[in-house]
C-alpha cells in the first residue's frame, strides 16, 4: 500500500487551502472510531491507535488546533486509568478465579447492597476493565486525530446557509474554552506576583470571577466586531417563501419523528421508512429555502475531490471490512476463562487500510 500514489494525485495542493476536505478527515476518523467499537482485542486497538498516530504525525500542520492530538491521547490514558482504578476499588461484575490481590473490604450498611468497596481483585476483572478502557481511549484518540487534521471551523463552510449562524455560535463557544484556560493560567501566574501561592484549589477559586469577567468582556467585544463586519445581515424574501420554509421545516421534522417512531415499534414497520424519508426530504428542502434569507457567499469553499474520496473511503472501508471479516472470537478475546488475545490477520489488514491517507495526501508545507 506504501507504493507510489496513482498519477494525478501527486500534484501540489492549492497553496494555502487544506489539501483534503475537512469532512473527509472526519469521516476517516469516525470510520476508525467505529472500527474501535467493534472490537475489544487489545492488539487490534493498539494497531488502530498506531494507525491514527502515524497519519497524524505524517499529515498534521503546525496550526494550534493540530496540538489537540496529544491532549486527546492524554485524555484517553486518563480514561483508561480511571476505568482500571474503578475495577480495583469497586470490584468487577466479571466472575474470576485468579486472585491478584485482596484489598481490605469496607463494610457498607445494608441499604448500600450491591456496592462493594475493596475486596478481591481478580485478573479477569482487571483484563476486562483494561480492554473496555482501551476501547474508550481508542475512540477518543480517533476523535483527537480528526481534530488535529481538520480545523473544526472549516467544517462550518460546508453547512447549509440557513444553519450558518447556529454553526458560528457553536464555534465561538468551542473557542471560548481554550481562551478560558489561557486566562486561568495567566491569572494564576499573576497570583504569584501578589505573593500568594500559585497552586492549589483556593488559588483557582479566587481567580474564577476575574476570569469569567474577562471572558465575558472578550465575547462582547467579539460580538461587536462581528456585528460591525456585517454578521447577521439578512436579505428580504417574499412572505410566501418564508411561510413555505417554516411549513417545510416543521412538517419535515414532524415526519422524521413519526418515521423514527414507526421504525422502532413493531406495528409501524410498514409506514415507518417512507415517512422518515419524506420527513428528511421536507426538512432539507426547508433548510435550502431558508438559506435564501442569508445573503452570505462562500470564499473558496473546500472541494471534495479524489483525495477526499480516498481518505473518507479508507476509514469507512476499514470499519466495514473489520466488521465483516473478523470472527467474533478473535475480535472479542475471552476474559473468562483468560485467553491470550491473538492477531486475526484479515481484520488487521483491514485496519491497515486506514494508513492510506498518509500516502495519498500531500505533505503539509512548513511555514516560512
Amino acid at each position, binding site marked *: 500500500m506504501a507504493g507510489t500514489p496513482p498519477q494525478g494525485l501527486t500534484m501540489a495542493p492549492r497553496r494555502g487551502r487544506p489539501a483534503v476536505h475537512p469532512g473527509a478527515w472526519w469521516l476517516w476518523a469516525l470510520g476508525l472510531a467505529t472500527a474501535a467499537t467493534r472490537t475489544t482485542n487489545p492488539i487490534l486497538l493498539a494497531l488502530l491507535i498506531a494507525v491514527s498516530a502515524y497519519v497524524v504525525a505524517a499529515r498534521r500542520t503546525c496550526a494550534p488546533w493540530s496540538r489537540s492530538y496529544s491532549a486527546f491521547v492524554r485524555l484517553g490514558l486518563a480514561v483508561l486509568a480511571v476505568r482500571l482504578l474503578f475495577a480495583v476499588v469497586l470490584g468487577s461484575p466479571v466472575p474470576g478465579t485468579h486472585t491478584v490481590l485482596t484489598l481490605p473490604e469496607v463494610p457498607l450498611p445494608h441499604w448500600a447492597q450491591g456496592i462493594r468497596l475493596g475486596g478481591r481483585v481478580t485478573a479477569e476483572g482487571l483484563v476486562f476493565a483494561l480492554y473496555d478502557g482501551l476501547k474508550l481511549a481508542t475512540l477518543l484518540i480517533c476523535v483527537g486525530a480528526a481534530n488535529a487534521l481538520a480545523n473544526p471551523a472549516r467544517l462550518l463552510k460546508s453547512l447549509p446557509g440557513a444553519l450558518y449562524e447556529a454553526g458560528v455560535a457553536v464555534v465561538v463557544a468551542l473557542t471560548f474554552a481554550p481562551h478560558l484556560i489561557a486566562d486561568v493560567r495567566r491569572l494564576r501566574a499573576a497570583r504569584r*506576583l*501578589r505573593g500568594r501561592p500559585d497552586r492549589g484549589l483556593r488559588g483557582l477559586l479566587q481567580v474564577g470571577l476575574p476570569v469569567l469577567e474577562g471572558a465575558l468582556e472578550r465575547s462582547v467585544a467579539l460580538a461587536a466586531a462581528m456585528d460591525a463586519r456585517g454578521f447577521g445581515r439578512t436579505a428580504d424574501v417574499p412572505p410566501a417563501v418564508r411561510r413555505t420554509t417554516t411549513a417545510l421545516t416543521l412538517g419535515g421534522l414532524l415526519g422524521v419523528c413519526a418515521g423514527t417512531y414507526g421504525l422502532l415499534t413493531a406495528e409501524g414497520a410498514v409506514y415507518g421508512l417512507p415517512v422518515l424519508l419524506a420527513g428528511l426530504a421536507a426538512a432539507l428542502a426547508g433548510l435550502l429555502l431558508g438559506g435564501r434569507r442569508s*445573503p452570505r457567499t462562500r*470564499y473558496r469553499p473546500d472541494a471534495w475531490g479524489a483525495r477526499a474520496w480516498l481518505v473518507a473511503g479508507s476509514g469507512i472501508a476499514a470499519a466495514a471490512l473489520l466488521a465483516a471479516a473478523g470472527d467474533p472470537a478473535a475480535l472479542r478475546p475471552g476474559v473468562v476463562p483468560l485467553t491470550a488475545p491473538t492477531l486475526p490477520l484479515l481484520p488487521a489488514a483491514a485496519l491497515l487500510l486506514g494508513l492510506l491517507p498518509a500516502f495519498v495526501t500531500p505533505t503539509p508545507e512548513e511555514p516560512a
Partner: protein
Amino acid sequence: MIRFENVSVTYDGAAEPAVQGVDFEVPEGELVLLVGPSGSGKSTVLGAVSGLVPHFTGGTLRGRVTVAGRDTRTHKPRELADVVGTVGQDPLSHFVTDTVEDELAYGMESLGLAPQIMRRRVEETLDLLGLAALRDRPIATLSGGQQQRVAIGSVLTPHPKVLVLDEPTSALDPAAAEEVLAVLQRLVHDLGTTVLLAEHRLERVVQYADLVALLPAAGARPVLGTPAEVMAVSPVYPPVVALGRLTGWSPLPLTIRDARRRAAPLRDRLANAARIPDSALQRDAPPPPDSALRGDAPPPGGAATRPAVPAPRRFLRRRTVPGAPPSRPTAVVTSLDVRRGGIEALRHVDLTVTPGETVALMGRNGAGKSTLLSALVGLVEPARGSVRVGGAVPHRTAPRELVRRVGLVPQEPRDLLYADTVATECTAADRDAGAALGSCRALVSELLPDVADDTHPRDLSEGQRLALALAVVLTARPPLLLLDEPTRGLDYAAKARLLAVLRGLAADGHAIVLATHDVELAAELAHRVVILADGEVVADGPTAEVVVASPSFAPQVTKVLAPQRWLTVTQVREALSS
C-alpha cells in the same frame, strides 16, 4: 463623508454626557486624527461612526451622525458594514476565523459578494498590506504588528469608504507602527479612503494627519483644525511640538524634517550654553549605590530631570539591610536560556541590575522582553543559565518570600487586581506582603490622590489602574521593580505622573527594569537601554549611546538636534534657562 450634527452621547447611569457638542464634518479622502486626554470620549466618537454607539453599547445619542449619507440612527452596525470598517484597540478580539486568508474574506462573505470578486480583493489586499507570505498562517501565531495589519486588511476587503481605528499603534514596536501607518497613508493617497483614527502616541501619527480633531476634556466641545493650529493649543502634544513651543517656532513643526530645518540656531545656542551637551546626559552612569541608598543625594543628571511633582519618598524608601555591601547588584542574569513552547525565547542573555539603576528593555514585539521579566520574577524556569534576584533563585522561592525581593507590574495591570473596591484591594495587599495595615492605602493616596476607597478597580482609568497595581506591588517594598509596557494607553499627563513616581523610586535605591516600545519614556527615564532581538541581547549600554545610534529607537529630540546628543525636551529647557 462623516458628518456629526450637534451630537452628544450619555451612557446609561452616567450623570454627565461622555461627549457633547460634537459638530464637525470629515471630508472625503482625508486622514483625521482624534486627539485628547484619557477619558475625553475619543472611543465614543469613533463608536458613533460605526453605529456601535449607541446600538451596541446602549446609552442615548442626541443629534445626528451620517456616514456616506446613511443615518446611524436608522442603520444598525451591520447595515453600515459596507461603508465603515472598524478596528478596535485589541485586534485579537476582532478576529472571527483563524487563518489570515479566511479572516480577510469574512467581511465580504457576510456582505454576500460574488466569489470571483472576493478572490480578487483578497489577493489585492494581501499585496497591499504585505501579507502574502502569511496568507495561510493561523492568526494566533502572528506577531502584534502582523495581527494589526490583518485586522486592518479584514475591514478593507469590502472596500469601505471610511476606516475607523482606535489606537492602531499603541501596542506595536516603533518599526511595526511605521509599517501600519505607511499602509494607512497609502490607502488615503491611492484609494481615497477616509480615515478617522484616535491615538495617544502623537509622536508617531501627527505628521500623517490632514486634520486634527481635539477633544480637550470630557464633555468639552471638540476643536477641528490643521495639525499645526490644533497642536498649538492642545493639552496633549508630541516632543517635537514641545520643542517648537519651547523655542517659539511658528508655525509649529510637526515632523522631524521641519524641525531640523529650523533647529540650526537652537543647536548653536545649545552648543554655546554653559554645559556641553554630554553633561546633560550624565544619567549614563547609574548613581553610586551608597548615595542612592541614603536617598539624600540628588541623582546624577537629576538637576535636568528632576520632576516637578514631588516624588513619593516617605513610604517608598526601602529598608536597607545593615551591613550589606552597598554595591551588590540587585539582580544578576547569566547566560540565560529560556524555552517556551518549543521556541527558544531567550538565548545567552546576560544582565546585571544595580540598586538605583533604571534599565529599559526594548526590541520588536516577540523579541523576548516579557519573557526576561517573567524569568526575573520566577514565572518561567530557565532552561540553562541562572537568575539571581537579591541572592535568591526566583522560580524556586516561595511567592510570599519573593514579593519582598522583586515585584512585577504586568502588561495588563488588571491581572493583579481581584477585589471589588480599592480599600479591600489595599488590605489584601498589606496582608500578602506582611506589611503594616494601611501601608498600601498610603501609597495609593500618594500615587492617586483623588480616588475614593469604595471605587471599583474596573472603573478606574487605564493610568489609575496602573498606579493601583504599582502601589500593590510596592507594598512589599521590593528592591527590584519590573514594569511590562507601562505606558500603553496612557496619555501624556498620566505618563508624566508615572515618570515622576519612577524617578523617585530610582532615587530611593530601587532598581527598575521596564520593557517598553515607548522610546520617549526610555529617553526620559532609563540610565541604560538593553535591546533584545530574537531572544538575544544585541545592544546594552547607556541610554544616550544606544538610542542615538539607532534610528528606530531614537527619541524625537535626539533626531532634531543631532549630531548633538540631547534626549528630552526637559534637558533642552534646563540647558537654555541656565
